[in-house]
C-alpha cells in the first residue's frame, strides 16, 4: 500500500502502516543524530524545555549539508544517516511520546522494534540519495543547537512528498530488517562451504 502521511502525526494513521508499505511525508521533519539525541535526553532528564516537540513528530536521522544563500539556509544534500547508531538512544525518547515516526537508513535493533510497538514506525529512505532528498525539502523553518556543528544540529524542515520511504519497522513488532537478517544467517551457513575452495585458486 502507498500512503501520504502528514504532520503532526495522528496515532491511528501510524498504527495502520504495515512493514513494506510505501510512505510519502508532507509537513514538518526535524533532524536529530547522536549528539542531538544525547542533549535531548539530558534536557528531558533535567526537566528543561526542548526547542522541538518529539511527540507526534517525524524525527529524521540526518546530518544535512547546508549552505546559506541570501541570508537563508538551504539544504544542498540531505539523505539519511545510519540509524543503528541511535539504537540505544531512541527507546529512551520513544518512552516519552504517544506516537512518533523515525526516518533513517539501515534499520534499527530489536530494542527499538519493541519501543515502537503500539506507537510508532521506522521509515527507510534510500541511503546516500542526498541530492534527491533535498528536492523534497521546501523550506528550512528553524535551526537549534547550532553549537553541535552542522551535521549534529537540529534542523527543522518543511517537506513535500518526502519519499518514497519504505516502512521498515511497523508498530506491530514486524521488522523487515530482522526478517532479512534471519535469512542472511541461513544463507551464510550455505556459502561457507563454497568459500574454502576460493583460496585454492
Amino acid at each position: 500500500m502507498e500512503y501520504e502521511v502528514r504532520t503532526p502525526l495522528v496515532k491511528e494513521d501510524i498504527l495502520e502502516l504495515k512493514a513494506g508499505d510505501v510512505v510519502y511525508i508532507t509537513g514538518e521533519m526535524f533532524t536529530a543524530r547522536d549528539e542531538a539525541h544525547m542533549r535531548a535526553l539530558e534536557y528531558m532528564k533535567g526537566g528543561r524545555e526542548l526547542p522541538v516537540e518529539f511527540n507526534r513528530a517525524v524525527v529524521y536521522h540526518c546530518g544535512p549539508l547546508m549552505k546559506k544563500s541570501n541570508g537563508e539556509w538551504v539544504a544542498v544534500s540531505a539523505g539519511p544517516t545510519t540509524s543503528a547508531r541511535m539504537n540505544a538512544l531512541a527507546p529512551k525518547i520513544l518512552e516519552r511520546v504517544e506516537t512518533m515516526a523515525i526516518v533513517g537508513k539501515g534499520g534499527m535493533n530489536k530494542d527499538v522494534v519493541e519501543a515502537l510497538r503500539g506507537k510508532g514506525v521506522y521509515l527507510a529512505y534510500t541511503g546516500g540519495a542526498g541530492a534527491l532528498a533535498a528536492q523534497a525539502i521546501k523550506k528550512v523553518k528553524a535551526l537549534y543547537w547550532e553549537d553541535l556543528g552542522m551535521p549534529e544540529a537540529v534542523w527543522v524542515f518543511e517537506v513535500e512528498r518526502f519519499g518514497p520511504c519504505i516502512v521498515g519497522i511497523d508498530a506491530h513488532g514486524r521488522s523487515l530488517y530482522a526478517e532479512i537478517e534471519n535469512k542472511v544467517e541461513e544463507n551464510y551457513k550455505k556459502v561457507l562451504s563454497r568459500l574454502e575452495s576460493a583460496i585454492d585458486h
Partner: protein
Amino acid sequence: MNRAFLVNFLKPFEFTKSGGIMVNYDDVVNTVVELFKKAETELGEDVIKAIQKAYEEEDNEVARSNLKAILENVQAASRLKVPMCQDTGLPIVFVELGRELCLDFDLKKAITEGVAIATEKVPLRPNAVHPLTRQNPGNNVGMHMPQINIDIVEGDSLKLTVMPKGAGSENVSALKMMLPSQVKEIPKFIVEVVKNAGGKPCPPVFVGVGIGSTFDGAAKLAKKALLRNVTEMNEFERQILDAVNSLGIGPMGLGGKTTALAVLVEMGHCHTASLPVAVNIQCWANRRASAVLR
C-alpha cells in the same frame, strides 16, 4: 590553464604548463578544490556502470526501487552540481610525486588549503571533529586531517587523487591479524565482515581488501583497492563477490541479490609469522577524482 576535467575517473585530466614553469602552490590548491567538486557531484563511469547493471539484473521490487533512487540521485547531483550524498566524507588525498619534479613550496599546506576552500565552495559538510571533545572546526582541517598519502614514483608529474570517504561504510570496516595457518579462512572473514555490516553501510557496497603487509599496511592496501576500476575483477575476487551476493542483504539491507558491486583485493608481502587482513567497506558512492599536473 584549461581545467576541463574528464568525466571518467579512470582517465585523469592532464595539463602541462608551457615554458618549463614548475607546478606552483596555487595550481595544487585550485586542483584540489576542483577534484573535490568533481568527486562529490559525479561518479566515475565504472561505478555508474556497475550500479546500472545491478538495477537491470535485480528482480526484487524493493531492491529495484532503491537502486532506481540511487541512479536518479546520481543524475540529479550531476545536473544540479551538488554533492550526491550529504556525507561528503573525510578528505583523503593520494599523491603520486614524480621523482624528477621539483617543488619549491609546501605541498601538504597547499592540499590542506584546497580542502578548506573546497569545504566552503563545493560545499562539503564539515565532518572532521576532535576525537574526544567532538568540537567541529568547520573546515575539515585538523590534526592529521586532511589525510595525505604520498608516494614517490617515476617521471616528472604530480598526480593528485581525492577520495572522500563517508562514515557509514568506514564504521563497519574491520581488520584481523590472522594466523599464517588460516590462509583458507580469508574469504570467510571477508564475507563475515559484509554480513555483520548488514544494511548499515548503504549497500550495494564495494569491498576493498588488503591481504598481507603490516597492521597499518593491510588497511592502506584495502583502501587503495577501492581506487581500481570496479568492473575488472580476477577469479578470486569474483568468487568472493558471488559468495557475498548469496547472503541476500540487498540494497539498503532490505533484501535482494545485490549486496556488493565488486570485491577488490590488493596484496603485500607480510612477516612469516603474520597474516593481516583488512576489509574496507565502501558505500555505492565510490567517489574519487584524479588530476595530473606537470
